[in-house]
């Protein structure tokens, strides 16, 4: 049994405050996730995600605002287009596409954030460690 390492990229205006709310509401969630703040989920480039896997992350969460809610009008639309393509590339390279997930979390969805993180951690736990996949 191993403990997966997960990196979450969360946008400043929705998902990061959402995670914050989970914290201030004292909702417990899996400690396997470390959150990195970006201004907008649109900032998360495919290269950055691939690099994150290479550096040893077992799973990557990209969290942005719900459609229409984005502080940056439609930065999240770009993310939404990008991630499915990247998943295809991951699959092609032999990395399970489930390791990457894009979700929309608003600033008021602390509970959803916690639930999501727990569930994602469980999904990743079922997969082998990334070290066995990338050599």
């Amino acid at each position, binding site marked *: 049994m191993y403990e997966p390492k997960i990196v979450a990229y969360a946008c400043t205006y929705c998902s990061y405050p959402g995670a914050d709310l989970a914290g201030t509401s004292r909702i417990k969630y899996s*400690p396997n996730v470390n959150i*990195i703040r970006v201004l*907008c989920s649109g900032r998360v480039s495919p290269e950055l995600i691939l690099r*994150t896997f290479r550096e040893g*992350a077992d799973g990557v969460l990209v969290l942005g605002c719900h459609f229409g*809610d984005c*502080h940056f009008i439609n*930065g999240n639309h*770009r993310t939404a287009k990008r991630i499915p393509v990247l998943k295809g590339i991951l699959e092609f390279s032999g990395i399970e596409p489930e390791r990457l997930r894009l979700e929309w979390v608003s600033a008021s969805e602390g509970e959803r954030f916690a639930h999501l993180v727990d569930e994602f951690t469980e999904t990743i736990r079922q997969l082998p460690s990334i070290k066995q996949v990338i050599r």
Partner: protein
Amino acid sequence: MVSVGQHENIEILSYSEVEEVSGFVGNFKVRVRKKARYVDEELCTGCGLCQEKCPAKGISSEFEAGMGTRKAIYIPFPQAVPRVPVIDTENCIWFQRGRCGACQKLCPRGAVDFEQEDEIVELEVGTIIVATGFDLFDCSRTTQYGYGRCDNVLDSMQFERLAHASGPTGGRIVLKDGREPEAVAILHCIGSRDENYNRYCSRVCCMYSLKLAHLIKDATKAQVYQFYIDMRAFGKGYEEFYERLQKEGVVFIRGKAAEVVPHDGRLLVKAEDANLGRLVQIPVDMVVLSAGLEPRHDAAEVAHIFGLSRSADGFFLEKHPKLAPVETASDGVFIAGTCQGPKDIPDTVAQAGAAAVVALAMMDKGKVTLEPFIAQVDEERCSGCGECVLACPYKAIELVEGKAQVSETLCKGCGTCVGHCLPKAITLPHFTDEQLVAEMQGALMELEVA
């Protein structure tokens, strides 16, 4: 409105639409389509003779909420500023059949011009205030209350016209057959606080329902029933008004009405009285549906033109709910009134004042403070593919001589272009690849889960 129309520094472009906004704070260029109203604003004195003589009668009036009629040439409502009529080309005999022209012949000033065309006006402005208002919830979307099916089931706007001295009945509150109602039910929360339509509270309906009840009590001997979920009398003096209505003998039933059915020539309102914990059926003569407020049907389009974001309920999103309530994600564009969310008149006036002051203060200062997050282009690496131009939500990037150039005032630093740039020519200070990678490496290193 009249004093606004007369103010030397205010120009009103009525019957016009903004088609495009370009530029940035302090230097906006706005393209406005001034639609042809077929009446010359300069010549028209607003005498209303054309409206009187127009033979195209019986067109359902928007202002009377369908309860009155208007002509094909009409002044939209009595207090309209400017007081200039417009021709409804769909119903105008001249536009449909090529003859008539009564208004043109009879106009003492010769102001009617069938040849008028849409005019494009280019404006240069420093700041913009968007105050586009709301749409009333369309009660025909609900089927259980008999709206549009049963006589004497009105929405609040129709009732408002009925009760108004200048309305279709001259202010007499009467049923369709001309009788005075003996009992009236006012149904709250139609289209608000309802998972089927809108989950939010429209805020104004409780109070205007109380006002309508007061009007009924004032003008008739009818018994008034209010079916409510919660009474939200939140403002200054509102609770006192609620108490006054209770003293006037209005019956308050806590429970949203479930159904309205015709019964013995009257209407039967079925509801659960939550305070008594039992079902009630109350026969009334008239039902008024307190319709909620919705974002305008074209809010998505307007948001796109002005670069606004919208909240989940569809209203325009302010920059910060407490600290920047009239600012938006686009610098120099402000919002006021119900386009930002349902609110009553005092709140709208306060917000409009705030928006005007913030907009003026910004222009008075003459300069703007920028956030430090502005995308930077490494010209040597830039291949000029233009992906970033397409990606930028603010249209802040353009290609100049084959290289991307970021407008410092337009860029908000979201970094979408960075995520899109294949040759990695764009960086975002404070969120550079190196910084994020270092952060990520740190995150992965520290992680020691027991």
